[in-house]
């Protein structure tokens, strides 16, 4: 069996360079990927990405090279590259660490993407709360312009490309790519009905690549070192490394990078140091609030797209939220549901009403007001939301609800029988 440990590629500069000095990035080989890309044809670069097997790190895992190819082959002449930096998934802070710690890696990845798909303009849509990320990116962009890595005729070629940072304003749903585009156009962030997909009809109706920060940060090394090298990392289904944000009841929380396929157990016990002294691990919420609850007997699961999908979970953002025996799953699911109810954009009825009904049903479980039919009702609501919601926000609520009810059913039943536990009582004292 493969021995897993940290493997830093995306994070290789983070903490070691001054992110506000472009020379630090250059001294460590920075912009070598862009240089290499410009010596090849755009179609060649797209081909390299396809061969690398890189899959989107925003959660859906769509093959990046194929997305780029759609845009490269699109009819429209005006094309855009949009970086989705609207990181808002609970338990997730990986894109922030990248943008704060090594902003040029993202800028280089975007410039390569622009060259590959024939775009002249790029945008980084950063959530408004990430003030430091925004400042660092803006500074890095102006340095890159001064050195000729952005702007007109990049590095003496006839390729021109520039990047603008756009700040979000507090709306989780804008992490959904079409809501993000609406927001960039100056509207409320309501998801669009797809198709058409952004590759045909994106920002201002033009063909647009929308990629997550972590996805684009993979690009420079893939172009510099080649698809064959990249495929030596990770699994056949999910090549490369992955950023795993570790949070919750762990001795060492923080961001780690490891090859795709690292067992959850290694992340939690070796890299995260396990639960605090004297406590037992009770479960893990994997992939964010829109992810799945896993029980302690599922810790050997490899953390890649395919393996998690096979057990009915998702990799999502890669977030690992561990909780120990002092936590109450009913209370934790309550927090997840409040999050979704607050962040549902209100456009489609199944999600707007469904999230509110779930909060009410969970409150009944918390207070012990009802019987097992309350739990059945929760499942029925999420079944409707899964098939009838407009976007992934509403569609994915069934995953945390279903897995919590399935794996920790006894805890829900005991609340219904005996009434609220101390954790639930404390949590319901607060409002807002």
């Amino acid at each position, binding site marked *: 069996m493969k021995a897993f440990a940290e493997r830093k590629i995306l994070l290789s500069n983070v903490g070691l360079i001054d992110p506000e000095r472009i020379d630090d990035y250059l001294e460590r080989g920075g912009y070598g990927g862009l240089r290499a890309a410009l010596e090849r044809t755009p179609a060649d670069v797209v081909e390299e990405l396809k061969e690398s097997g890189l899959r989107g790190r925003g959660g859906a895992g769509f093959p990046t090279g194929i997305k780029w190819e759609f845009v490269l082959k699109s009819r429209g002449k005006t094309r855009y590259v949009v970086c989705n930096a609207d990181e808002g998934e*609970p*338990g*997730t*802070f990986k894109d922030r660490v990248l943008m704060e710690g090594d902003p040029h890696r993202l800028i280089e990845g975007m410039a390569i993407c622009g060259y590959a798909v024939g775009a002249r303009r790029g945008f980084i849509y950063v959530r408004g*709360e990430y003030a430091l990320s925004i400042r660092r990116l803006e500074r890095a962009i102006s340095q890159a312009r001064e050195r000729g890595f952005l702007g007109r005729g990049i590095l003496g070629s006839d390729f021109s490309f520039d990047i603008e940072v756009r700040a979000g304003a*507090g709306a989780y749903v804008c992490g959904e790519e079409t809501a993000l585009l609406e927001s960039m*156009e100056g509207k*409320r962030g309501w998801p669009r009905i797809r198709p058409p997909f952004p590759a045909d009809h994106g920002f201002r109706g033009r063909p647009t690549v929308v990629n997550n920060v972590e996805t684009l940060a993979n690009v420079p090394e893939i172009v510099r070192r080649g698809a064959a090298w990249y495929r030596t990392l990770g699994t056949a289904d999910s090549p490369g490394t992955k950023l795993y944000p570790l*949070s*919750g009841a762990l001795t060492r929380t923080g961001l780690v990078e490891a090859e795709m396929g690292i067992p959850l157990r290694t992340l939690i016990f070796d890299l995260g140091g396990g639960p605090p002294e004297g406590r037992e691990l009770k479960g893990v919420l994997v992939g964010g609030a829109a992810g799945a609850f896993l029980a302690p007997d599922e810790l050997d699961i490899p953390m890649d797209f395919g393996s998690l999908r096979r057990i009915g979970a998702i990799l999502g953002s890669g977030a690992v939220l561990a909780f120990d025996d002092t936590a109450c799953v009913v209370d934790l699911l309550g927090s997840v549901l409040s999050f979704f109810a607050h962040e549902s954009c209100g456009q489609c009825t199944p999600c707007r009403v469904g999230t509110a009904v779930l909060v009410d049903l969970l409150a009944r479980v918390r207070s012990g007001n009802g019987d097992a039919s309350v739990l059945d009702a929760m499942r029925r609501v999420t079944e409707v939301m899964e098939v009838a919601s407009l976007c992934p926000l509403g569609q994915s609520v069934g995953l945390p609800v279903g897995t919590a009810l399935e794996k920790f059913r006894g805890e829900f039943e005991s609340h219904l029988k005996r009434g609220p536990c101390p954790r639930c009582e404390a949590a319901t004292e607060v409002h807002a």
Partner: protein
Amino acid sequence: MEGRIAMEHRPKRWEILRRFPRRRDQLLPVLHALQRANPRNYLSPDDLRAAAEHLRLPLAAVYDAVTFYSMFSLVPRGRHIIRVCRSPTCHLLGATPLIGALERELGIRAGETTPDGLFTLEVVSCLGLCDRAPALMIDEEPFGPLSPGDVGALLARYREVVR
């Protein structure tokens, strides 16, 4: 139309708006800039009208966007905005007692502004500070992990600056 925006800090507002092209996709950047320049940390009716006029949008379109995004406020706020996170991670590690301590220390409820106009307390969805949970931000500065006992000293730093 011009006359309607002739009130509070108009010259400054014009200075801000002229930097932005008159296109709808500039709406969020314009609103951020106007809110930042407003001494009460919010978007006044005049701010909204000025944005609409500059971008040649119906006022309703501006209002629609402003009410959608949680970082924009239609009511005056304090000099410092405290955004305390209640995401599942922060909740798990003690956001509830932290929010309680903030409310007691400030003498207000979440969503309110202190009578001296110094602080507004907001409870938000997720700040992306999960490795430091429970966490909060004061203006653009992140803090965490925090226990209820840390609140007094933290706020004192902001109160002292004023005196």
